[in-house]
């Protein structure tokens, strides 16, 4: 983290006998739009005829070796900021089920199509100690990785974590993807619950995200200003969600 993308290569697996080629074209067009937005150039790619549709990018960039944002730098006393709300995994399942509202579906798509570029540019102005992006392991999984790499305890105030509209309702209806349950179970031995955490809220904390936000650990004296600047830059749902409480073997505490 903390680098600048230079080139991107498409990687696409597509069931050419099953889906129309126009779908592939739209996917590649959307990807290219985002590559341009990120300030990078498309340098070719690989395609495979496959049973299930997959698309991704292999991105190469530049970063000063002293300014790499690793997930290992979180220090006791730091404040944690999350730059996007949670819930895209549960919402994607609800969309597949045809049970998400049009508004929730649009919000999920917009959130997933939003790059972390702008958030990163704001945060570059501050002495970031540790950073990770929230993707398939959910907030819980990626926070745990940060805690273990930094050998600290991350204390997350669940009531402060931004969550997209309808997500808790859909979780209560049983629209939780398998990956999110797997995250929850995988993290269980290193997660400490203080007080009673609603099981649905726990599932949202573990929900596998697509194109999630950044989780950033930074000194307390700059956290409020960084958050203000994130909001001013239009990253309105970013929030302070907790702090780094103490040295440890790597624990996430949920309150």
């Amino acid at each position, binding site marked *: 983290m903390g680098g600048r993308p230079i080139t991107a290569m498409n990687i696409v697996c597509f069931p050419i006998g099953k889906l129309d080629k126009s779908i592939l074209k739209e996917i590649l067009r959307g990807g290219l739009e985002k590559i341009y937005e990120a300030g990078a150039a498309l340098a070719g790619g690989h395609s495979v005829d496959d049973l299930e549709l997959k698309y991704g990018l292999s991105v190469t960039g530049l970063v000063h070796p002293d300014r790499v944002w690793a997930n290992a730098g979180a220090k006791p006393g730091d404040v944690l900021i999350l730059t996007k709300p949670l819930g895209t995994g549960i919402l994607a399942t609800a969309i597949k*089920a*045809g049970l998400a509202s049009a508004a929730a579906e649009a919000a999920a798509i917009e959130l997933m199509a939003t790059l972390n570029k702008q958030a990163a540019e704001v945060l570059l102005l501050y002495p970031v100690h540790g950073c990770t992006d929230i993707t398939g392991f959910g907030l819980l999984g990626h926070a745990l990785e940060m805690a273990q790499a930094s050998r600290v305890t991350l204390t997350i105030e669940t009531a402060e974590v931004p969550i997209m509209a309808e997500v808790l309702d859909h979780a*209560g*209806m*049983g*629209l*939780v*993807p*398998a990956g999110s*349950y797997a995250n929850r179970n995988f993290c269980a031995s290193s997660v400490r619950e203080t007080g009673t955490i609603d099981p649905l809220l726990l599932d949202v904390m573990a929900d596998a995200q697509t194109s999630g936000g950044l989780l950033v650990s930074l000194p307390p004296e700059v956290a409020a200003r960084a958050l203000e600047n994130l909001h001013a830059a239009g990253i309105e749902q970013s929030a302070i969600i907790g702090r780094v409480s103490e040295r440890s073997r790597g624990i996430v505490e949920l309150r």
Partner: protein
Amino acid sequence: MSATVDARGLSCPQPVLMTLDTLKTVDHGEIVILVDTDTSKENVIRAASSKGWQVRSVQPEGIEYRITVAKV
């Protein structure tokens, strides 16, 4: 009234949708739902509970689960 939903071999959200569809057509009695993943088991239990059905039993049968829900 009673009904059986066989959602074995299906992945989410299909078992939940089948359960919800059946709950809609039955206003009380007992429904048995067969699933074969832990994810489906948890999600089906939630779906039934959210509609006011009580989980009577969850029996593991090999790699499958037989979930019985009821409403009086």
